[in-house]
């Protein structure tokens, strides 16, 4: 195998421009399904793997700029395109189109699904190669595992993950954003300080576009034998709801011990982030700005979810209460989108993953230091979701609602106690700021649910009703 610059110029992906315009909108991670595509254009191409024999195979890395008929914002998508003469049955579902090379037909497909092609990325990372601007790197002091097989996890909205031999997981960002991805940035920082509550970062693939650094992919140790917090928590809630007459601390599936340990893990990660990246503080202007941002998000949300209007005065009061806090309020880099789906229970404890921040927010906002209570509020809201979503299906009654609330309260308290055991404060005692963050999150959720899962919009609305009642 030898790859040179001339190869890149003759890359087969140039033949795919038209095919991609129809293929991209069929992909789960394509973010503009409702915008007609005007043009798809390769803005970066690199040949990564090339084997010429009786069964030739090829892998090309490309960034495609997608422009739309509405002349709106151009989006960048990253592809690893594989080529084979014969496409095995199991890869037919990721076929893109046929291309020609020296008079032979080759089939182009999503190369991440191909064992050989996906595995070919790791040696590039191990030897730290650069291919036409695509930089492969190993994290200092880490080593890239040698693997024999790979499988794709394609359930995420914005990226595709490849799991290698239960040893490592490569997270490939599909839609690219200029600037270093906060997931890579924070995982690097946490690795530097030896944080045990995140999967170890092993390596990365990065590049540049328009003079800015762009994160293509990151390789982490795979948390073998893990389950996410959401499935753990909902198993517990299911157990409680089935009992009817037993209380949350009496049923076998009690989650409080797990919630406590989860609080410890989150506090430890916050401490490590502060150590690695420093802290700053909000003065009274900063507090006003924070409150103002929350209020304007509320205004925008009411336009989408009119039912929010009845709570708006009380919610605003809660946001304005931030003004009365005594500055300075400490802030630092945080996870930004913490919920039960972003934590993994392994046989030894909890891990936090996906430090990208709230995907809907622009990158500059996601990089901004924030109070750790943002993350705490995210997790507390997630407990509420876990408890409430089972009530959406099946007949709800007062008894079950009462039990679900009890579950939430018990696990919120346990989480905060666990947090306080590691950190120097109990988040539950920071009532004003915590409540504002929770309301801000619930407002965001109401918009999200209205747009994606209308049946679930009741969950944040009911929580907002509850949180504002507690105010009076």
């Amino acid at each position: 195998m030898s790859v040179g610059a001339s190869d890149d110029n003759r890359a087969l992906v140039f033949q795919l421009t038209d095919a991609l315009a129809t293929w991209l909108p069929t992909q789960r991670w394509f973010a503009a399904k409702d915008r007609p595509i005007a043009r798809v254009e390769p803005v970066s191409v690199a040949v990564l793997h090339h084997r010429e024999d009786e069964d030739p195979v090829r892998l090309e890395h490309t960034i495609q700029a997608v422009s739309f008929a509405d002349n709106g914002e151009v989006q960048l998508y990253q592809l690893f395109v594989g080529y084979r003469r014969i496409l095995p049955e199991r890869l037919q579902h990721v076929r893109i189109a046929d291309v020609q090379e020296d008079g032979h037909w080759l089939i182009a497909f999503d190369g991440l699904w191909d064992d050989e092609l996906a595995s070919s990325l790791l040696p590039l990372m191990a030897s730290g190669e650069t291919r036409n601007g695509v930089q492969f790197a190993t994290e200092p002091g880490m080593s890239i595992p040698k693997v024999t097989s790979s499988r794709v996890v394609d359930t995420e909205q914005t990226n595709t993950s490849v799991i290698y031999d239960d040893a490592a997981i490569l997270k490939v960002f599909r839609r690219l954003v200029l600037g270093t991805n906060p997931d890579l940035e924070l995982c690097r920082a946490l690795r530097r300080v030896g944080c045990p509550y995140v999967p170890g970062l092993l390596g990365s693939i990065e590049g540049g576009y328009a003079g800015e650094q762009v994160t293509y992919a990151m390789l982490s140790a795979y948390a073998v034998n893990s389950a996410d917090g959401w499935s753990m928590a909902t198993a517990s809630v299911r157990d409680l709801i089935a009992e009817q007459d037993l209380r949350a601390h009496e049923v076998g599936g009690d989650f409080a011990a797990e919630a406590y340990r989860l609080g410890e893990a989150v506090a430890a990660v916050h401490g490590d982030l502060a150590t690695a990246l420093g802290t700053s503080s909000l003065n009274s202007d900063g507090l006003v700005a924070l409150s103002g941002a929350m209020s304007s998000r509320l205004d925008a949300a009411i336009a989408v979810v009119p039912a929010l209007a009845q709570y708006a005065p009380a919610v605003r009061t809660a946001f304005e209460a931030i003004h009365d806090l005594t500055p300075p309020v400490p802030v630092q880099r945080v996870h930004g989108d913490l919920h039960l789906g972003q934590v993994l229970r392994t046989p030894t404890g909890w891990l936090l993953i996906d430090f990208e921040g709230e995907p809907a927010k622009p990158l500059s906002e996601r990089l901004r230091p924030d109070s750790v209570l943002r993350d705490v509020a995210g997790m507390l809201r997630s407990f509420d979701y876990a408890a409430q979503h089972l009530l959406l299906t099946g007949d709800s009654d007062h008894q079950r609602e009462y039990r679900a609330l009890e579950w939430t309260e018990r696990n919120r308290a346990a989480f905060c106690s666990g947090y306080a055991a590691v950190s120097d404060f109990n988040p539950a005692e920071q009532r004003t700021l915590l409540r504002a963050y929770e309301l801000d999150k619930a407002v965001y959720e109401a918009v999200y649910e209205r747009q994606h899962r209308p049946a679930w919009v009741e969950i944040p609305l009911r929580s907002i009703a509850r949180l504002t009642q507690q105010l009076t």
Partner: protein
Amino acid sequence: MESGHKNPPRKKPIEGSHVTDEGLVTHPKAAEYRHAYAMPVEPLWFKRAVFYEVLVRAFYDSNADGCGDLRGLIEKLDYLEWLGVDCLWLPPFYDSPLRDGGYDISDFYRILPEFGDIDDFVALLDAAHRRGIRVITDLVMNHTSDQHPWFQESRRDPDGPYGDYYVWRDTDTGYPDARIIFVDTEESNWTFDPVRRQFYWHRFFSHQPDLNYDNPAVQEEMLGVIRFWLDLGIDGFRLDAVPYLFEREGTNCENLPETHSFLRRIRKIVDDEYPGRVLLAEANQWPSDVVQYFGDPSVGGDECHMAFHFPLMPRIFMAVRRESRFPISEILAQTPEIPSSSQWGIFLRNHDELTLEMVTDEERDYMYAEYAKDPRMRANIGIRRRLAPLLENDRNQLELFTALLLSLPGSPVLYYGDEIGMGDNIWLGDRDGVRTPMQWTPDRNAGFSQANPGRLYLPVIMDPIYGYQAVNVEAQLNNSTSLLHWTRRMIEIRKRHLAFALGSFHDLGGSNPCVLSYIREYNPPDGDKPDIVLCVNNLSRFPQPIELNLRQWEGYVPVELTGRVPFPPIGELPYLLTLPGHGFYWFQLSPREDAQ
């Protein structure tokens, strides 16, 4: 049936130990007794065996005195053979004042008279061996009863031959770092003896003085005891309370190097003089400490052949109650590799309480809350219940727990009566609640004894759910869907697959935390076909789906082991299974061409 009766009459030796006028304690010799028919030597039999703990007192009464005996046990060996038991574990049957279930031995050379005599014991070994069943028993090495003549002589004559057989001190301040085990009854590990006017050391009850292993004579005495029973034909010992043999100031007096070196000495005697016999350590410690008792892995292990895996059992209960695999996954992930000639012993229940020593305080509170709602159910740091009442007699859970016992790594140890789902009596004192008579029939005394019911050593269970009229062997033998028949079938399936006994263990994980899945894989050394078994257990009471990453076995066909039904072959995608509440599957993974 017992060959002993066909031999020419011989002079019956005087039973047990005696104290001479000179204050010497004499012991009988094995040569004075008939020796049992020996089973063929099979060095690693214990790695494949299904063990069955049976209390002689509780199993069957052959002479209508209200107490089970060795001759009674012989009469019931056909039942145990039918069940598929490979080895009986008998808790101590030595002469004893019975203040601690026989673990307070007053004469190592004499059988408790109500159980029979040494001839009866040899007859039991004979009858068991002829059925392919081995027999091991407890040997209490750490201490004796205070009624043992060694102790009586030791307190009477500090300067005599037994004066240094026990650990005597003028004060009660030594070894302050050693924990007190029986916290319910003991305040100190030292007790003052008014006769010798000194304190003696005891890790357990104050009526069980610890032997002084720093005295070479004590070591020789115990080796003599071991040789005596091995000469008669016993297949091995469960060594009771091994971590505590030696004491050293400034330590917690557990797992000391001196203790290990003495165990190596015993193992060498077994290897050299009694090959094929087994030593099973009772060391209620974390697995990482217990592995020390297997000895040096570079020689395949040179201390005990087996050791109980204590922390696994409470974790199984906790996992099912929490509907989460992590308590089990965690403890197995913390369990180190063991030497090649070693095996874990695993159990769900035994004659002691549900041992909670090896769980954290928080988990212990949780177990108490979940499984012992009545304070009487708590004893020491444990819970005294049988399996069926612990699981509220839920057949699905009983099957799930038994399937876990028979498929997790280690040799399973069943507790007598659990195969029929016997109950307990928490109103009986100490740990007697789980030691009631075996329930054979719905007749008087549960068919256990012909004695007047008032004469039974303990009353039979009579409550409406677990009473002998509802739960007994006879009824379950006549019902092919009974727990008894089910247990027998599962034991039989386990024995067909060496992977269960000898295979490696690989936790498969999976996204559903309620499901515990693992692969047991055995590769025979002769290069024969590997035996691969997939076990999937739903720890939740609700039906659950699970997607398993079985790509390593792509193209293999899972064949369900109870019905031999082939399931769809394993493909590239995660393998989807659905399980009923508390359901489980055992599959053999066969290459496609072998599955048909």
